[in-house]
């Protein structure tokens, strides 16, 4: 899933300053799971912004809150078109994709990012999320025992550990495991150390020209009965 962190209240305060009516819009998918911008966070932020406003004695803003199932699909955004038409700006607690989807769908309404989108990752334990995939477009996890050196090695190198690893940890951060030590141990366990002995050539960055687009070979119809393979 996509992992994000809510921006500091002060930064949000500066962004919303020019606007009177603001819709705080949460997202029900990844942002809810990572605790950055689901229904609960929308409500907390709403309260915090009201308190901040009361303290400053200005009372210029009028907030409304709402959370959609997903901000990254127009079909869910369409359901809040009426709410959006009534405000001066949307403070989105969706990831960067949600913010851009709103901007594209509602060209006349300013949209402000309430979170910093960080990475794709997993929940290691509740409250701790770890990056696991860089979306590099050229997955070779079969060569590295299912542990991604692009994401988990601070240098993203392909031919084994650098000399900075100490006690199995990364030279850049002693809290973090050296990806290549993990890869070595798992390849050893799987009896596949020969994979580490291979030479891996430099990455081909042409596989990831930005912006990327995927055109599905599956015929996708709106609604429940989609997913038929087009042959």
């Amino acid at each position, binding site marked *: 899933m996509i992992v994000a962190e809510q921006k500091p209240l002060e930064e949000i305060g500066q962004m919303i300053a020019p606007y009177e009516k603001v819709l705080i819009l949460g997202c029900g998918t990844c942002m809810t799971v990572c605790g950055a911008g689901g229904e609960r966070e929308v409500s907390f932020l709403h309260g915090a912004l009201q308190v901040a406003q009361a303290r400053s004695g200005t009372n210029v803003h009028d907030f409304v809150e709402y959370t959609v199932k997903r901000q990254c699909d127009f079909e869910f955004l369409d359901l809040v078109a009426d709410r959006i038409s009534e405000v001066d700006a949307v403070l989105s607690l969706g990831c960067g994709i949600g913010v851009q989807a709103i901007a594209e769908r509602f060209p006349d309404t300013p949209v402000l990012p309430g979170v910093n989108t960080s990475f794709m990752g997993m929940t290691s334990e509740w409250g701790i999320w770890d990056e696991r995939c860089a979306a590099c477009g050229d997955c070779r996890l079969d060569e590295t025992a299912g542990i991604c050196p692009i994401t988990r090695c601070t240098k993203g190198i392909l031919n084994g550990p650098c000399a900075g690893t100490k006690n199995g940890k990364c030279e850049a*951060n002693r809290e973090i495991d050296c990806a*290549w030590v993990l890869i070595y141990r798992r390849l050893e366990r799987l009896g596949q150390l020969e994979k580490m002995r291979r*030479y891996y050539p430099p990455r081909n960055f042409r596989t990831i020209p930005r912006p990327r687009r995927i055109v599905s070979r599956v015929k996708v119809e709106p609604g429940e009965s989609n997913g038929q393979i087009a042959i």
Partner: protein
Amino acid sequence: MAKSLFEEKLNSDKFLVTTEVGPPKGADVSEMVHLIEMLKDKVDAINVTDHQSSVMRFPSLGGCLLVKELGGEPILQVTCRDRNRLALQADLLLAYSRGIRNVLCLTGDSIDVGDHKEAKPVFDLDSVQLLKMIRIMESGKDMGGNDLKGTPEFCIGASVHPAADFIEPQLIKFEKKVVAGAQFFQTQGIYDLDSLRRFMQFASQFQVKILAGIIVMASARMARYMNENVPGVIVPQFIIDEFAGVEKGKGLQKGIEIAARTIKAIKEEKLCHGVHIMAVGNERVVPEILEAADL
């Protein structure tokens, strides 16, 4: 024919001594010039470090040009941290055109340990790929497969960490570097000869020259600091204790003594093919170390 004076010596039976200078932080090269003049005839080659510990400095290529101008034998340290494959190739073409023929290929320390922590790390290549890239250039092509007008030739080396606390993956990488074309290795700092002996048992099956890294330290505080903060440096407790027992102001003397003792032992035991002395800020004592080690 040898590509450089240093390569010629690598191919001989001579016990080799290399050392390194760190370029200045700024445009004033007078101190570096002084050090190069002092060291150039006492060692077989002088490495110039490439933003060592990710601290921005005068470039290694500029430092190597100075070594060359002053009549010394330079080893250009090249890291993959700050340049993509275009810039790496271009720098090597410049180096070659100015007579620099020895290159030490390194991945480079993390940006996070240096003084520009907000910079974008590059790492387009890693050290193994960099070695291979040079061999590709020597075939007359660039990495894009295009013909080069004028083909460079280099004597190339790499680093290895014989005292790593988890040696097996380091050995695999060492072997990959050999296969990629490394002719010589300068190791990370060695204090414990047992780890060097074990490593040399493994390394002796390959046709490469190994120069043991000797880091000169000047106090228990420095030893502890390097152990904790400098990537790839592991200082054993007995060395830290040895420094701790020294009276104030005599630390560097102890550092010289330990370095000379280690070099002597390596040479007498014919443990490897030479030493690489890293004096990190105390380069002026390198001649003293050589004298104390009977070199």
